[in-house]
């Protein structure tokens, strides 16, 4: 009968009513049976029973303390108290809502990226990404199919291991080709991830390497929805990819977009659907190293055990095929939330730091609201004392005060929740359209709601419980008796108030410092010289090979593009490349320099790009030795190579690199030139060896690079038209000025400085209003004392000094603590800075000056007001 002790209250009330009714009915029936008239019987029974509501009331008391009703009363009281001071309520709620929203927004971004690395996949905590060789930022696919097969079949620690490779391709067959992202996957891909099809089926084990006359394809949910209008009978239908007919066998569930965090696959096919990649499937090095691998750990297996297991296997593979495995072959495993493949490597470096900042903002806000609350409780001492002497015990009083804090934080939490539904989606703004199908955004799910609840709870406790606990300690009798003597609430409260202000200054200093450092980093990045001149450059991607053109067709079309674009008015230089620097992508390959003996475990991977004649000229990258590529460096000519300074120094120190040979993809390339170093990925990268190959020998993707007179964006339509004049069905993408593309490299710096800047602004406002509020309040409380001092001969300057000193003392302590705190926090962000040290003296001193000046101003106004008071009125005032 006691399942729902409080919620069953209404039901119990109803039952009691019925019980009493039954009692009366039986009494009346008895009386009637004894010969009374019904009317008189009713009256007699009622008389005998007594006061029905009273009986109900005392009986319901027996049900135990009705906590729900009690709680309701307390809530109503708290609301009434908050309504009495709307200024406080609105200010505190708004401040807390902003602070909670700052936290929940960053958290929603973490939730949408790091915590949900593969949306739709089962238990992503058991998934690890495999990396071979050096751990590095944004690695290239590390495994060949044969190595992967060995690892998959011989390991003892994985429940499953999948591999994939993805790239652009075009959907042909429609009026206009549509560029989509396609992944070649192993047959167990969906199974290991734990994904079930919404329509049809996924791949079978025997289909993994089997070429088919008409290959099978699986559609993503969004492609099925948008391009095929969610056709329920799509399975079995034929479509055309890169001018090849394929059969749709299944549709992936909504939300699932592939195994690489942050990137969106539209289609999935098997590893070698057309049988054209037989070489790739049967070799272990060079171009056959093309797969990303993700494994699902067996239950109870640790990362260490799994890494050990794979390392042993890899060692056997290296021993068996030493020529295919020069360089570093150690295996590292990463959980998906910080997997270097995809976006999470970047996220893991940025977002937790921002969450830490947001946490500081929340603490700061709590300190501010706690100050306001404390001042409020001090001014309500009389009310609290009266309630205490009327019988309320200390616990009840504290509960009442804490409840006011809880009501505030719940209201703020609700407000923050509403705000976050919008702000969580702003993450995508930071990522401009690039050459990758990026799908990064925050997510607003139950994790975030729980997060907001936790943040609100924390806020409620910090800014409700602390002042409540302090205020409730004042003995009632003392308070009622000594109304005026200790008007500022006694020295204990004064200390707490000062402590809270010190905390606010100490917390806002690191925020300001970090945002200063980030802003200067951003400026340094914008002004930095990447080693190439990107102004007046327009790039456009022509999807030749992904649209299914044959090799010969591609060569012809490329020559035509060169001729047509060069003829356009205003175009100075036209060149080809298959890679654009600073777009968060790079191509990597193992290169074996002739005569070079690598150190044990030395990575032989180099960055590479295939560029045509005049590439270096149009980007103003100086050729230090040798020559640039010429149009004659084509497929009939011997393979040639231009290396950058880093590569030349590493492989041929003290020698002339010209004429040296490098083996890549099993073929020898002769070095014909040395180019100056330029930035590949990020401004603050450590230089990696770079080799340039001739576009007309090895170029795969076709990116046209046009140097223009004037604004390159103006040339976009003309360039696109000129290409379409060659063949109207040529897919042309990503037509944009190079400067726009390379901004991708500073996306994270922009995120960091934007958020840190906003947080710092909030911090500054809070700290300054906090110190102003407390100094003003305390000065007002000391009006009487100041009046007496002035009457006894203190000058106005003395009064000014008195008040200012008190504020400056607090400021000084706050700044000192804040500096110590900041030194710790800036160490966290040192990796994210560019061109500036984490303890940059100029930034530190200007931030300290800023805070000190603002605090001084905040103290000056109350001091000035106190100074100008008439001592006589001041003394009279209490």
């Amino acid at each position, binding site marked *: 009968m006691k399942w729902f002790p409080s919620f069953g209250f209404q039901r119990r009330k109803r039952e009691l009513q019925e019980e009493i009714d039954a*009692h009366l009915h039986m009494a009346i029936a008895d009386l009637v049976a004894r010969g009374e008239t019904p009317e008189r019987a009713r009256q007699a029974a009622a008389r005998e029973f007594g006061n029905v509501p009273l009986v109900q009331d005392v009986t319901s008391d027996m049900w135990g303390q009705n906590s729900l009703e009690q709680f309701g009363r307390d809530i109503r009281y708290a609301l009434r108290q908050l309504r009495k001071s709307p200024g406080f309520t609105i200010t505190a709620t708004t401040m807390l809502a902003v602070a909670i929203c700052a936290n929940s927004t960053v958290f929603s971004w973490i939730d949408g990226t790091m915590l949900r690395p593969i949306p739709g996949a089962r238990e992503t905590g058991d998934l690890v990404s495999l990396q071979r060789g050096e751990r590095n930022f944004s690695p290239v696919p590390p495994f060949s199919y044969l190595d992967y097969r060995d690892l998959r079949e011989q390991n003892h620690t994985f429940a499953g291991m999948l591999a994939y490779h993805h790239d652009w391709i075009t959907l042909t067959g429609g009026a206009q080709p549509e560029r989509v992202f396609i992944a070649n996957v192993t047959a167990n891909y969906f199974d290991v991830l734990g994904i079930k099809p919404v329509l049809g089926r996924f791949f079978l084990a025997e289909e993994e390497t089997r070429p088919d006359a008409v290959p099978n394809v699986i559609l993503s949910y969004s492609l099925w929805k948008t391009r095929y209008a969610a056709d329920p009978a799509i399975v079995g239908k034929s479509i055309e990819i890169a001018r090849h007919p394929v059969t749709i066998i299944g549709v992936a569930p909504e939300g699932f977009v592939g195994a690489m965090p942050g990137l969106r696959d539209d289609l999935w096919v098997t590893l070698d659907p057309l049988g054209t990649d037989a070489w790739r499937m049967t070799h272990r090095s060079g171009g056959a190293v093309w797969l990303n691998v993700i494994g699902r750990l067996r239950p109870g297996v640790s990362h260490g055990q799994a890494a050990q297991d794979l390392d042993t296997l890899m060692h056997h593979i290296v021993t068996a095929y030493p020529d295919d495995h020069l360089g570093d072959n150690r295996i590292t495993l990463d959980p998906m939330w910080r997997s270097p493949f995809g976006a999470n490597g970047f996220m893991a470096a940025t977002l937790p730091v921002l969450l830490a900042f947001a946490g500081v903002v929340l603490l700061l806000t709590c300190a501010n609201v706690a100050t306001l609350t404390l001042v409020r409780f001090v001014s309500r001492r009389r009310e609290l004392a009266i309630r205490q002497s009327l019988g309320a015990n200390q616990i009840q009083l504290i509960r009442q005060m804490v409840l006011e804090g809880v009501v505030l934080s719940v209201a703020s939490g609700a407000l923050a929740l509403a705000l976050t539904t919008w702000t969580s989606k702003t993450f995508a703004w930071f990522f401009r359209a690039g050459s990758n199908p990026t799908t990064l955004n925050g997510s607003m799910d139950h994790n975030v709601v729980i997060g907001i609840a936790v943040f609100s709870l924390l806020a409620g406790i910090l800014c409700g419980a602390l002042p409540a606990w302090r205020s409730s300690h004042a003995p009632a009798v003392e308070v009622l008796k000594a109304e005026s003597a200790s008007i500022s609430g006694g020295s204990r409260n004064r200390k707490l108030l000062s402590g809270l202000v010190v905390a606010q200054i100490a917390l806002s200093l690191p925020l300001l410092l970090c945002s200063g450092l980030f802003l200067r980093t951003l400026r340094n990045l914008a002004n930095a010289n990447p080693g190439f001149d990107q102004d007046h450059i327009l790039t456009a991607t022509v999807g030749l090979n992904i649209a299914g053109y044959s090799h010969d067709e591609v060569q012809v079309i490329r020559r035509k593009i060169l001729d047509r674009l060069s003829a356009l008015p205003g175009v100075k230089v036209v060149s080809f490349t298959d890679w654009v620097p600073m777009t968060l992508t790079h191509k990597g390959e193992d290169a074996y320099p002739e005569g070079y003996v690598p150190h044990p475990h030395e990575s032989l991977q180099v960055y590479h790009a295939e560029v045509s004649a005049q590439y270096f000229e149009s980007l103003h990258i100086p050729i230090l030795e040798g020559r640039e590529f010429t149009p004659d460096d084509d497929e009939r000519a011997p393979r040639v190579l231009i290396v950058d300074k880093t590569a030349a120094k590493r492989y041929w120190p003290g020698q002339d690199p010209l004429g040296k040979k490098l083996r890549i993809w099993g073929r020898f390339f002769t070095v014909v030139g040395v180019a100056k170093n330029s930035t590949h990925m990020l401004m603050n990268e450590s230089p990696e060896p770079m080799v340039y190959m001739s576009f007309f020998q090895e170029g795969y993707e076709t990116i046209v690079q046009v140097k223009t007179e004037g604004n390159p964006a103006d040339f976009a339509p003309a360039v696109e038209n000129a290409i379409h004049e060659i063949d109207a069905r040529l897919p042309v993408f990503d037509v944009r000025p190079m400067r726009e593309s390379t901004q991708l490299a500073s996306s994270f710096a922009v995120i960091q400085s934007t958020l840190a800047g906003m947080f710092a602004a909030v911090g500054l406002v809070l700290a300054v209003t906090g110190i102003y509020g407390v100094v003003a309040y305390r000065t007002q409380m000391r009006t009487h004392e100041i009046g007496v001092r002035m009457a006894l001969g203190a000058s106005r300057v003395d009064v000014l000094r008195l008040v200012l000193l008190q504020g400056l003392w607090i400021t000084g302590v706050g700044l000192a603590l804040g500096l110590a705190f900041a030194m710790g926090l800036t160490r966290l962000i040192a990796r994210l800075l560019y061109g500036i040290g984490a303890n940059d003296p100029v930034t530190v001193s200007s931030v300290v000056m800023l805070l000190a000046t603002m605090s001084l101003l905040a103290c000056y106004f109350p001091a000035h007001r106190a100074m100008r008071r008439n001592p006589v009125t001041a003394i009279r005032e209490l």
Partner: protein
Amino acid sequence: MAEREQYKNRVELLQGTLDMLILQTLQWGPQHGYGIVQALRLRSGDVLQVETGSLYPALHRLERQGWVQSDWKQTESKQRARYYRITPRGKKQLASDLGRWERIVEAIGSVMYVKPEESES
């Protein structure tokens, strides 16, 4: 303060007695509130008149303490009523109440009857 304590004792005593009477009534079989009032009145020869304002709080308290249990049932005259039934724990409580009651009666009796000549009246 002293007055309040005395008052509390008195309440407790009465409560204890009422509890005992209710539990004893239920020993004879499950009964509803009205039935308990009638039974007590009959058995005591119309002397004990239980106030409903005491009876129902007592019944609900006894139920919370686990000494009685209640079920909704039909009376013979087809009236739906809440029947209370004594539990094993209630029976134990009744035995202990009864023991205490007997001791009190004995003690009061020994005060009232053994030395009647010493009283003022």
